[in-house]
């Protein structure tokens, strides 16, 4: 039963906010309560089952199928707490602002703890609605255009994904605990539908161009929750469903997947270098980093072991934390200086040394500095890329993709250090002259997420133990 509370707490909090409860406080309490409830549910291995339909057999069935669900849940509740404290809510919009964050969180959590394909899909769809609303109503810049584009894009992905899931459901049922390989003749089709469906939701090249503008436009909590948590739904699904139901089909499309993920890293990486605004740069970098997680999945398909999948999950967690922290701090930079244009800033480290420290920390995490979580994930991914290598055979496609992908490590250092240099180093610019440092409240998300990055970076077993 406890596990049902994970969804009910944010939903009830939303209802409370709707009926006039103090929005921020309620959201904060819900986020903290959800962390406690998660720990309780994990420790007690709580489950919940309610039959909704008998033919086809659909159940509201919640629980942890394996450690991957636990890790994703932890990611979701940590980022949710950071998200409800991040950003600056425009006056009078508290209801929409905080209830959206809670609903996105509820949807993401629901998807990760569902044991039924129907609800797995439906929870994710539900979480998208407040995402679109927040971009469309409270977004910055060209918000309507961006909201619309994002909606179209994700709906396109969802529908393709839906077709794939229905194929799966019809053949082997909706229970995610009993997934098995589809009949051989269906595998190629199903695998392609799932790769493109899930892939679009994770901004797999060439279905990626919605992501950066969406994150740049969306209010900070939404970017944090979507890029950090909700987007991982596609990768989670690909591992959880795709690899189980269509192992041969995935092998069939391996080369395609490798080409696309290399484009994610190199092509989008170059696009990222070319960004002049911090928020667009971070958005693109998030797209780029998805390539590494796809690489782990591809390495598994191409002859890797569970090491590759654990690498993928660890990196999903690490990236979720780090991108959420980046967006949170970017919002702070904008609040303090009124700009995110890289060439308008400079010397901010003098007036805001703490902001510089935390941004430096997360910047170093995202370019894979050891000691921080992302490195542990990335090095595991690269190792898994060479797992299937036989020294007598020369390099196979997975190894070649891995080698090209490692160049991404240089690319991300280029844009991140350039951004850090332009914002924090050098002489103070007019916009940074009167900037102040982070307040205690603004610091909180950075401290929370920063500790998570360090903790997992130094002691990755804290996450990996769930996966063994």
């Amino acid at each position, binding site marked *: 039963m406890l596990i049902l509370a994970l969804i009910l707490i944010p939903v009830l909090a939303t209802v409370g906010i709707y009926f006039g409860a103090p929005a921020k406080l309620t959201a904060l309490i819900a986020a903290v309560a959800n962390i406690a409830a998660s720990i309780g549910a994990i420790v007690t291995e709580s489950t919940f089952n309610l039959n909704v339909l008998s033919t086809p057999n659909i159940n509201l069935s919640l629980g942890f199928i394996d450690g991957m669900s636990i890790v994703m849940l932890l990611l979701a509740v940590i980022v949710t707490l950071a998200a409800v404290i991040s950003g600056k809510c425009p006056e009078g919009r508290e209801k929409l602002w905080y209830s959206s964050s809670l609903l996105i969180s509820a949807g993401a959590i629901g998807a990760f703890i569902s044991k039924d394909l129907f609800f797995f899909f439906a929870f994710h*769809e539900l979480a998208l609605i407040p995402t679109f*609303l927040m971009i469309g109503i409270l977004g910055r810049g060209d918000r309507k255009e961006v909201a619309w584009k994002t909606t*179209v894009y994700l709906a396109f992905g969802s529908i393709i994904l839906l077709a794939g899931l229905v194929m799966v459901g019809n053949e082997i049922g909706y229970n995610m605990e009993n997934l098995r390989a589809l009949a051989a003749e269906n595998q190629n089709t199903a695998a392609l539908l799932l790769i493109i469906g899930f892939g679009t939701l994770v901004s797999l090249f060439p279905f990626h161009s919605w992501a950066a503008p969406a994150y740049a436009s969306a209010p900070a909590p939404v970017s944090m929750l979507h890029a950090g948590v909700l987007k991982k739904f596609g990768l989670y699904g690909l591992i959880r469903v795709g690899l189980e139901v269509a192992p041969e089909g995935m092998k069939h499309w391996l080369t395609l997947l490798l080409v696309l993920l290399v484009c994610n890293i190199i092509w989008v990486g170059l696009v990222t270098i070319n960004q002049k605004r911090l928020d667009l740069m971070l958005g693109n970098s998030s797209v780029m980093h998805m390539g590494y997680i796809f690489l782990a999945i591809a390495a598994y398909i191409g002859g890797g072991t569970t090491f590759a999948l654990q690498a993928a999950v660890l990196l999903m967690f690490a990236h979720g934390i780090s991108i959420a922290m980046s967006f949170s701090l970017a919002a702070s930079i904008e609040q303090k200086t009124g700009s995110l244009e890289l060439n308008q800033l400079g010397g901010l480290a003098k007036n805001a040394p703490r902001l510089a420290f935390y941004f430096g920390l997360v910047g170093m995490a995202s370019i894979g500095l050891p000691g921080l979580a992302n490195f542990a994930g990335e090095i595991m991914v690269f190792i898994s890329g*060479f797992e299937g*290598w036989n020294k007598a055979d020369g390099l196979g496609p997975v190894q070649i993709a891995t080698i090209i992908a490692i160049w991404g490590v*240089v690319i991300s250092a280029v844009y991140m250090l350039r951004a850090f240099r332009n914002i924090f180093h050098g002489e103070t610019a007019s916009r940074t002259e009167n900037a102040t440092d982070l307040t205690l409240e603004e610091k909180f998300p950075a401290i929370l997420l920063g500790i998570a990055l360090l903790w997992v970076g130094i002691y*990755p077993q804290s996450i990996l133990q769930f996966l063994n």
Partner: protein
Amino acid sequence: MNPLWLLFLLPLITSVVIHFVLKQKYASIAALVGTISTGVTLLIAIMWVSGSFSLPTPYEWIKVGGNSLEVGLIGDQLAKGMMIVVCGIGFLVHVFSLGYMKTDEAKARYFGNLSLFMFSMTGIVLASNFIMMFIFWELVGLSSYLLIGHWYRKATAAEAAKKAFLSNRIGDFGFLIGILMVAGITGTFMFSGMGNGAFSASDGVLMAAVLLVFCGAVGKSAQLPLHIWLPDAMEGPTPVSALIHAATMVAAGVYMMARFFFSIELDTVPGAQVIAWIGGITSLVAALMATQQNDIKKILAYSTLSQLGYMVMAVGLMAPEAGMFHLFTHAWFKALLFLGSGAVIYACHHEQNIWKMGGLLKKMPITAWSFIIGTAALTAVPFTSGFYSKEGILHAAEGNPPLFWLAVTVAALTTFYMFRLIFVAFLGDSKHEYAEDAKEVSPIMWAPLAILAVMAFASPFLGQLIPANDFTPDTGFHMNFITVCSIGAFVVGFILAFLLYKGKESDPLANNKIMKVFANKFYIDEFYAGIVKWLQDIVAAIVHFLDEFIINGMIVGGLTRTAQGFGNLFRKHIQSGNLQHYAFLSGVGIVLVIYFTVFH
């Protein structure tokens, strides 16, 4: 807990305490804490050499099934000796910094980052496996970045820090692939598992793996073509240049190659010739550049490049012990020269141009004489440490005449540019009022110089402190062909410097066209700047354009417009606000799910 873990934990905890507890408010305490902590690690390292500790159980960092990545220690003489270099010079640099950085407005940050460096460097030296070495390899990159950028408000320092990090990253790209290939070939990341024939595959594969691993050294030890970051790194405080960018971190590339070559236990390593030549060419090109620099630190920086080239060449000639021996002697006398230049710069009100110095021998005799001793060692005057180690490298090159004569030429050039420095900066008359006012530095600064000056003679005789396995240095004086070449090179270089620079007020070679090429560092920086501009800006702009207008514009745009058409149709009929508009497509998804699952 095994006391050897303190080698890691002390500097790490010190760094954390300085950064987060003491801060600038208690900067003087921070400086002392950092210095004492380094002193303690030096003591532990010395006790370790005398054999009183056993190795600790490794920490399992990542463990998945049968795969395990661990943080463990290696305890051969190569590691122990290198530890002495790192802690010994680290301690002296800390002491020197107490004086040099006394009034710096971010003194606490400086000492905190110095401790972070000590921690990271310890990890490279003691790493029992390639992944651990890579971890700390990246961390020294971070501390180097932070320390070069110490005065980050200066644009040149900020740029130099970034350049150092990125150049190293390019090397690490190859290094990481190399590590993965080595692990693929030998089946392990552990150095202890790579010998005994484990490192075997086709020659092409082995050569690729060796050269890719070597890429890491090219970055860290600033070999051609990634040497460009090291001279710029002189933007950092001078004690940092002594510790990180002369004695220890930049030598990590040589150390890593020595560790690797020692581990794979092969008599001939495929690709070693390439390594030798890259080292040789670097040493020559850097020595030529050094002849026309006017900044005292830049001269020493190019000299460091050149000497690192020597060491790399020795490794490539399958004599990594000779390379490590030179690394060892060089570490002490180059730290001496850098700290000496720091004392000079400090005394001359941060003037770094040698043509505005002059006559410093009389003004600051302790600094000047120790600098001259360091110069003697660097230029391989007989009975100094550099003489013995350079001899070892020339021996290694004996079988390869082109490289041998290249090495002899470099030796002559080294003497030439170092005595140019001595004649201009320390002898003659003061050329500027700052040099006129210069006074000897305080004992806290000259004491480390004095100790290092002793080491410039004593280091070859320290036996088991020398970081090389199964190696006894030849510390005898034999008059043979090699010695004649070595001394001959010194004489030629010295006479040229004497004739050209004794008592001169300006550089007589400054207008020579060839010398201009040297002074401008063969225009390599400009060449790279062009390439980087081209690659980054133009290619990235093209990709960005394609992304924006082809993928986004045509594919997505088309999709969006189609959907928008439906949306408008929908909106006209329902007359709704934003909410339905945005929720529409998502809602369609849910409706479809229900339709398919229930009615299919």
